[in-house]
Structures are given as structure tokens and as C-alpha cells.
């Protein structure tokens, strides 16, 4: 076992232990020192500490990863790209846990299982972001998926949550099947399962067609996870039906990790700029952002609107991926930065939805949020920040991330992609600000209630401040993002 193997193992072991501890603490009951805390606060703290420790280790590895290294015989690749997106996953999980607490308590779901599942899912996602081998990628993806299916269906007494979980599961398992078959074809074509082996195989030789078919199936499987059109349709139902805090996590962390894998596979395939792959890629990107935005326009439920909005954002990010595949390396950093901004604002927005959500998905429609600003001024302010950021209004993180991403598309020569992206994000302003019109300019609905608490407040406040801070002082983050440029084989 080399030093790199150990280094790669540390974050994964920390998360495994953390998840196990969360389960254990549920069974053992409250330790003496934590008697005075609210019930199960110690489990929240345990998971948060585990995630923080993981993030620190990832940061340390990030700092030392100027020379990327392979670990475990090529199963993982410790490079800044994977570690950076692993950090985004940590951020998503660390924010999604506190914003969930209020809702979970109100539905009596506040159990160790929930937190453990989030932590295990994060484990799978970090592995997915680092995976350099298709077998490892598949296992990591399944670890992630199985955990996330559970989260979607965690509210068993609701009628919506299990339905969402079943739909998500059927679609997800179907896509996994496609991906696995693709892996088999790749293996057949290259006699290897290393992602790095794909590129040479595609260049020619007997296995070229087999390899490209395999690559296509793998990309479709991953495209499903990032909710790219036409593989996106599950996302609306899953994010809308799942409890909002679970949606907050699913819509962000899963996407970050799946984008990492998608980019790693597609960039390593070394596709010729100008080939049909690129055209297919940007058609899918345009379709994804447009379909997401148009569908979001028609929504009357905030939560479902956010679900479609997450599809639209996946479309923008896919545009960046296309630019990266086309050979424009800075697009990798732009996508990474975009995913960070997207994670902050979407976790926050779904977190606010979790604040208001009641049994069976009630409390999540525009009408129910009418006048929320008068009754919950701080939460409404946070929501305003998230929505402005989602709409891409300066000085928020969302604005800079979009600017950076579109600039990369233009630099990469994808003018039309950038143009459609800008049009789409203009369109999106309408439905984001519509929510604010309801919250700030309607008479209050006396029915509206929220489940606050220190964790929820802290989670929302941190997300909102981070959105503003990244928007106002983006230099550090942009510098870090600029280092996410190396996913090449080796």
C-alpha cells in the first residue's frame, strides 16, 4: 500500500466511521454530556464534525495535489479536480444536514439513520468524484444512488415521498443498467476498465466502435444522474416528492459528483473537437436548459419550480462541460465554480422550502408563501438572496458563476451555446422573482408556519452569507477553481 493509497483512504474512512457512529449513537441513546441538548443534536454535531474533518483532509490533499497521483492500482486519481468537487460535496452535505433538522423534527424523522444515510451518500459521491476506473466508478455511483433512494423515501408516512423514491429508483436503476452495460462494452474494447484507456481505444483499431458504443452508454448513465434532457424527467418528480431537505442534498451533491464523473470520462475520451459528440453534447445542453426553464415557468409550487430550475442549471453546467470536451481547459474550473455556487444557492433555496414544508408536501406552493416576508423576515431575506443568485443577479455567487461559465463558452468558441444560455437565464428571472413577488407583495397567509431552530437558522444564514461572500469577494474561489484543470489520463 503506497502513501497515495493511504491518503485516498483517509477521507473515505472518516466518513465511514462517521456514518457508523451516527447509527450507533441512535442505538446507544444520548451520552451523558449531551443530555442538555435538544434530542439528537449530538448526532447532527457528529455528522457535521465528520464532514468537517473530511473537508479538512480533502483540502490538505488539494494543497498537495500539484502532482496528481493514482491510488489503489488506478482506481482513484487524486487530482485537484476530483478533490475540489469532493469539497463541493462536503459543503452540500454539511449545509443540507442543519437545514433538515427542523423539518425532520416536525415529522418525527429525526433519527440517526437520516444523518448516517447522508454521510454514506457523501462517501459514495467523493469516491465518484475521484474515480479513475469504471468499476470503481460504478460501485461509487451505486453507493451514492442507493443512499439517495432511501433519502427520497425517508418520509414513509407521506404519500408523496415513497412515490418519489420509487420513481427515482426505477429510473436510477434503469440508468445504472445502461451504464453497467456500457462499462462491459468498454471493457471488451480496451481489455481494461481504466478511464484513461478509453481515449486511445477510440482513436482507432478493432475496438473503436465497441468503445464508442460503451462510452455512449456510460455517458447516458451519467447524464441521467445530472438530469440532462431527455434523461431528466425523473428529477422533477423526485425533487418535488422527496422531503425538501433530502431534495436539497440530492439536487446539489449528487449533481456535483455526477458532473465530476461525467467530465472525467468525457474529457479523458479525448474526443475530436468538431466531431458529432460535441454537436450531440451541445444539443443536449441547450435542450436541458430550455426544457428546465420552460417547465419552471409554469409551476405553482416553489419546490417543483426549484426542481425544474435545477435541471436548467444542469443545462448551463453541461454547456461548460461541452466547452471542456472541446478542449477549452479553463472551462473545467468554471464548471467547478459554477457547481459550488449552485450548491450554495440551491441548498439554501430548498432549505427554505424545508423550513415551510408540512406533511404531504403542503406549505410549498407560491400561494402558501404569500406574505411570508412579514411573518418570517429573515428567512424571506435569505430566500431573496438565494433567488437573486439563482437568477444570476449581481453581486451574488450565481452571477459570477454564470458570467465565468458563459465567458468560458465564448472563449471555447461556443457562441451560440453562450447566447442561448444568456437568453435562458433572462427567462429564468421571471419565475425566480415571481416567488419574491408572492413573498413580499401579497397579504400574509395566516396558515403559514415554519420550523426554525438554531440548526436551520445557522444553515440558512451560512448559505446566504456564503452566496454573498463568494459574489462579493470571488478572487480566492476563482483562484482555486482555476486549478481544477487536470483530469487527463495518467
Amino acid at each position, binding site marked *: 500500500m503506497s502513501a497515495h493509497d493511504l491518503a485516498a483512504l483517509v477521507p473515505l474512512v472518516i466518513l465511514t466511521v462517521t456514518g457508523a457512529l451516527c447509527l450507533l449513537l441512535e442505538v446507544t441513546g444520548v451520552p451523558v454530556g449531551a443530555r442538555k441538548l435538544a434530542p439528537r443534536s449530538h448526532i447532527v454535531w457528529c455528522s457535521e464534525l465528520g464532514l468537517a474533518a473530511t473537508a479538512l483532509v480533502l483540502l490538505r490533499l488539494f494543497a498537495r495535489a500539484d502532482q496528481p497521483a493514482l491510488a489503489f492500482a488506478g482506481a482513484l486519481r487524486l487530482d485537484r479536480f476530483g478533490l475540489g468537487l469532493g469539497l463541493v460535496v462536503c459543503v452540500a452535505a454539511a449545509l443540507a444536514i442543519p437545514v433538515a433538522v427542523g423539518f425532520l423534527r416536525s415529522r418525527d424523522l429525526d433519527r440517526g439513520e437520516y444523518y448516517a444515510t447522508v454521510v454514506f451518500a457523501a462517501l459514495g459521491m467523493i469516491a465518484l468524484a475521484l474515480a479513475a476506473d469504471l468499476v470503481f466508478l460504478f460501485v461509487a455511483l451505486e453507493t451514492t444512488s442507493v443512499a439517495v433512494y432511501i433519502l427520497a423515501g425517508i418520509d414513509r408516512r407521506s404519500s408523496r415521498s415513497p412515490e418519489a423514491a420509487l420513481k427515482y429508483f426505477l*429510473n436510477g436503476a434503469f440508468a445504472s443498467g445502461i451504464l453497467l452495460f456500457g462499462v462491459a462494452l468498454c471493457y471488451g474494447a480496451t481489455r481494461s476498465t481504466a478511464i484513461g484507456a478509453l481515449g486511445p481505444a477510440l482513436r482507432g483499431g478493432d475496438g473503436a466502435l465497441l468503445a*464508442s458504443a460503451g462510452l455512449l452508454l456510460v455517458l*447516458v448513465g451519467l447524464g441521467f444522474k445530472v438530469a440532462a434532457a431527455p*434523461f431528466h424527467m425523473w428529477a422533477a418528480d423526485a425533487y418535488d416528492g422527496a422531503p425538501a431537505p433530502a431534495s436539497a442534498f440530492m439536487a446539489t451533491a449528487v449533481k456535483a459528483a455526477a458532473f465530476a464523473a461525467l467530465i472525467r470520462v468525457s474529457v479523458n475520451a479525448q474526443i475530436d473537437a468538431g466531431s458529432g459528440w460535441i454537436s450531440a453534447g451541445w444539443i443536449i445542453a441547450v435542450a436541458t436548459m430550455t426544457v428546465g426553464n420552460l417547465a419552471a415557468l*409554469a409551476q405553482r409550487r416553489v419546490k417543483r419550480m426549484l426542481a425544474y430550475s435545477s435541471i436548467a442549471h444542469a443545462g448551463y453546467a453541461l454547456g461548460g462541460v461541452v466547452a471542456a470536451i472541446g478542449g477549452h481547459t479553463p472551462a473545467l474550473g468554471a464548471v467547478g465554480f459554477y457547481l459550488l455556487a449552485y450548491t450554495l444557492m440551491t441548498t439554501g433555496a430548498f432549505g427554505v422550502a424545508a423550513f415551510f414544508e408540512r406533511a404531504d408536501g403542503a406549505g410549498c406552493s407560491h400561494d402558501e408563501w404569500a406574505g411570508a416576508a412579514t411573518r418570517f423576515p429573515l428567512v424571506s431575506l435569505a430566500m431573496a438572496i438565494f433567488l437573486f443568485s439563482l437568477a444570476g443577479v449581481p453581486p451574488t455567487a450565481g452571477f459570477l458563476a454564470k458570467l465565468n461559465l458563459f465567458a468560458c463558452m465564448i472563449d471555447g468558441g461556443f457562441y451560440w451555446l453562450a447566447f442561448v444560455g444568456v437568453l435562458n437565464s433572462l427567462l429564468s428571472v421571471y419565475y425566480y422573482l415571481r416567488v419574491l413577488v408572492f413573498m413580499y407583495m401579497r397579504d400574509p397567509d395566516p396558515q403559514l408556519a415554519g420550523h426554525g431552530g438554531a440548526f436551520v437558522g445557522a444553515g440558512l444564514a451560512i448559505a446566504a452569507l456564503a452566496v454573498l461572500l463568494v459574489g462579493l*469577494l*470571488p478572487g480566492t474561489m476563482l483562484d482555486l477553481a482555476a486549478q481544477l484543470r487536470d483530469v487527463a489520463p495518467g
Partner: protein
Amino acid sequence: MPTMRTYADSGLYLIPLFPLIGALLWGLFGKKLGRTVVSWLAPGMVFLAASEATLAVLRLYRLGLKAEDPTFIGGWVGARLEQVLYTWIGVADLNLDLVLRVDPLTAVMLMVVCWVSFLIHVYSVGYMAHDEGYWRYFSQLNLFVFAMLVLVMGGNLPVLFIGWEGVGLCSYLLIGFWYQDQDKAQAGLKAFVVNRIGDLGFLVGMFALFGLFGTLDFGGLESAVQAVADVDRTIAGGLFAGYTVRGVLTFACIALFIGACGKSAQIPLHVWLPDAMAGPTPVSALIHASTMVTAGVYLCLRLNFLFSLAPTAMLVVAVVGGVTALFAATIALAQNDIKKVLAYSTVSQLGYMFLAVGVGAYGAAIFHLMTHAFFKACLFLGAGSVIHACSGEQDLRQMGGLHEKLPITFWTMALSTLAIMGFPLFSGFFSKDEILWLAFASPRGHWLLWLLGLLAAGLTAFYMWRLMLMTFSGETRGLDEHTRTRLSESPLSMAGPLLALAALAAVGGFVGMPAYLPGLSEWLGVPFVNYFAHWLDPQWVTAAAHPGASDLFAAAGGAADLALTAHGHAIEGGLMGSAVAVGLGGALLAFALYLRQPAALTYRVPKLPVVGGLYRTLLNKYWVDEVYGVCPVGAVRVLARFCARVLDDIVVDGLVTRVPPFMLRVTGSAVAWLQNGDVQRYLSFIACGLAILLYALLRGGGP
């Protein structure tokens, strides 16, 4: 003389940090902390900032001396302290730092802003003691100091602009501090709107400079200017192809000057400042007299190396400044609201500063900025003390006879009035005299500009003594019985700052004594040194050394002295004498007319035939507000109505209200059809998508 060296300094951030902390604390927890804590700590935060600033200036002083001759007279070459707090954007062609910088010019501004702010904070503790919004007030006042410090310390135009907008915001908030009063809220809005017009100029100028030089950093601009040997060269390519560098600079400088006009209330954007008196009086003293309104002057001085190369722009500045000085002084003659008189006086004095900038007398401009901050802050605080004593009465015709009841207020205001009228050896004398002399003698000056200033000086003396006499002499006229019996001097927290500012107004001018003072230097037998000008000399080196500005500066030796060789000391002495005479004449006229029956004139004059019409014109401020009400505002209103009818009804209502429902219906039904809830439909879409992609792949025959 080389340009100043730059030294890294890690302590500069502390200067704006303290007021920022204060603003946040009082804004968030003011009520919990209580009045006592806020009363001590709000001025305390500014005191800490002022102390840090003073230490920074001392560091600057030490670093700015030559190693071989560490004396101020011989070895002062100036220096810059710099702290980069954050790199916003650091890509190749655009480098934007959040950077603070202190150089001799900033040092003067720092001292003025910090210490005057501190005194006015102390004063406010007494003045606002019974106000409901005590915490809000100090939060906003601290925030103002923060923004003003960012403005003066910003090392590039964007940072300066952040401060610029920040002070504008605080000004807006504080003018409308008593926002329940519709008129006062309206005044805040007016200030905001007029300043937006100016800001447009600022932004245009900023973009023009960026287009020309590719940088907005002051140091970067300076080196860029130095690199342009021939300013009349035609630019070959890029945004400004076909224009000369001087032409673009003239354009940029005039655009920036429009921004400065907005902030510093120069014609034609002066209309907001008198209305801004709706705010609490200490706010008027701090923001609308001594600090924020001078930001426009500071901007021009900061970019002096650009203005020096654009004589046309400087002519515009000088003419606007000179005309404003006279124009506003005439309006001040007829105002009856004590604060309105002082407001127009401020506009007029700011006109002097721009006059100085326009003739290249940069040192004189900032010198007058400083002395004006002292005496005008003192006058405003004195007026506040009077208003405080008179239970909110601001009409001069109702006052009178207050000198016995308010002795401290009277004597401090009297000293400041002597200063503003330019009474010999008071601070205003030195600064105003320097401006008038250079307006006449500078290579870019003109005797007409001097005449504008001279007339304004006479009027200044007249309206200030009119104000003083109507307030303090004779019998008390209007106040009700209750107020009369309770008339008394303000508490110590208010009197203290008054005394300090009056002392500064009286003797503060000695730091900038002119090298030539008729008789005095011969009599004393020592040559005078203008310490103030000497301190600032390194600031003008870039401009002075540039061949494009050789007409303005004496190129010999590269010293930053204006080319004054054409005029002798005799003329300087003569001009000084005439200025003093005019000032005294104005004062004597005021005494003659107002000493006996201070208010009688204001009732009698309007009935006189010709003078009455003139008086009404002045009283109504030349009907500028009315003209604006018809022309720009009315036109905008018509345009707005047009927009409401045409754009709103047809375009917005048509496209946004009517088409979206249509569009929403279409997308809604499309989505409802696609996403009908059937999971197997979703699965078939995946399968179909996959099939199409596979087909495309096989059709294409592989990768």
C-alpha cells in the same frame, strides 16, 4: 524630483474597520447595548480610527523623508503606504485589487475627515440625546465615516467609487432620517436622484480611462500617463482610434467632473444640497459641509495628473467653480433659514475649491477644503446649537438677541465667520487668498475668474454677518414665551466640539502661510515656508514633470511650483489687499444695515421697486427648482407618462401580461403532457434518447 515610493503597510485596514464595526454593532444590537454605551463607543470608534489614521500619517512622514537629509524642509519627497486587502479579479488584462493607499493628499483628507467626524460625533451625542432613532443615527453616521474613509483611501477608481456610492447612500439615509416627514424623505430622494446623474458622468469617465489606459489603479494611471510622452499623438487602434490622447483625457476629465459636480453640488447639479438640510444639523455639518461634498474636489485632485494634461477640462472646471461661487453667494444673501444660508455658503465655497482646481492651484484647493471643513463645520454646529436652543426654530427673522444666552455659540461662530470672510490671519484668509491670487496669476488663470472670486468674497462677508447679526444682536423677535425662558447654552458635549473647531478655524491657516505676506516676513526677518503646500508638493510631481503640462508648471528644476514668474510680489500684495478690503466692505455694509434692526430689512426690501424684484429672485434661488420642475423633471414626467401608456400598456402588458399567460398555458400544457406522472413515460424517454444517440453513433460510423 522622482515620483513617490510605495511602501507596504499592514495596518491601514484598521482605519475604516473601527467605524464599520461600530455601524454594525449599533445597527444590530444598538437597542440592547443602551444609550450610554452607544454614546461613548460611537465617537470612540471614530476616535480609534482617527488615532490609527494619525499613526499612519506619522509613518508616512518618516518614510517620506530622504535618508541623506531627514528634515521636512530639505528632504521631504513624499511616500505612499499601501495595503492590498484582496484581489477581486486577477486575470491577465484586468487586475482589480481591493487596495487602500495613503499618500500626502490622502493624509490631509484623513486628518480632516477623521478628526472633524470625531468632533461631530461627540456633538451628536448631545444633539440627538432625546431622539427615538438614536441607534439608527449612530449606526448610519459610523457607516458614513467608514464609506468616506474607503473613498479617500481607495487605491483605484472602483474602490473610490464604492466609497463614493457608500457616502451617497448614507447621505440619502441621513437626510431622510426623520422619514415620517414626507418633505424630508422627499429631500433625501432628490439628493439621491441628482447624484445619480452625476454618477453617470463618473462611470462614463471611468470607462473612458479604462478604455484609454487599461487600468483604473491610481498608480497605474500615473505610470500610464508618464509613458505617454506626446499627448497630442493620435491613437492608432482600439476604442478611441483617431482621437488624440489629450482629447480622450479631456472627455474623461469632463465626465468625471460631472460626477464631481453631482457630489459637490456645483451648477447645474447644486439643487439637492440646500434641500439636504432636512437632515439633522450635525449631519449637515459633517456630510453636507465638511466631508462628503468635498469628495468631488478630492476626486479632481486625486486625478490632477490627468486634469493637468487637459486644459479645456480645467477651464470648464474653473468657470463652473467660479460661477457657482458667485451665484450661490448671491442666493445666500436673501435666505431666511439659517441652515439654507449656510448651505448656499457651502455651495459657494465649494465653487472656490473647483476654481482653484481649474487654474491648477491644487494645493490651494485642498488647503481651502481643510480650512472650510473647520469653519463651516463650526458654523453648522453653532447653527445647530442655536436651533437646539430655539426648540427647532430655523427662521432668522424669529431669532435675535441670543448672544447673551448663548455666549459660547456666539463667540465660536463669530470666530468662524471671521475665518470664512477672510479676515487677515484667520484660516480662511490664507486659503481664500491663495486661491484668488492663483486664479489671477496662474498660467491657466484669468482676471475674470479672479473677479468672480473677489465679488463672491465680498458677498460672503455680507451674508455671513447678516446671519450673525440677525441671530445674535438686537431683541429676540419671534420665539414663543416658553422657549424664550428656557433659552440656554448647549451642554458640554456640544460646546466642546464648537470650541475645538473654532480654535482650528482661527489658527488652522498658519500651516499654510504664503511665502509672501506683505510686511510681516520682512518685519519678523524670517522667510516663511508654506508647510502645507510643501507637504503636498510630491503629489503633483507627475503632472509637473510631464511635457504635456509644461505651460502650467515651471519646468525648470522640475519643481511642482506653478509658473508664477510673470507676476511680482507687488501684484500679489495688491490683490491680497483688495480681497481684504472687499471682505471688510461687505461686513461693514452688513453691520450698517442689520445691527440696529436686524429683521426690518427683510420685510421692507421686497416692497422696493427694482431691488424688491431682485430680492425675490434671490429668495427663490433664481427659480432653478421651478425651471427644473418644468424642464427636465416635467419632460421626464411626460416621458414617463408616455412610457406608462405606450411601453407599459402595449409592450409590458401586451408581452409580459398577455403573452406570458399564453406562453404559460402552452408550456404548462406541454409540461403536463410530458410529465404526466407516469414513471414509464419517463423511462421510455430515456430509452428513446438512448436509441437516437446510438443510431446517430452507428450512422456516423463510430467516433
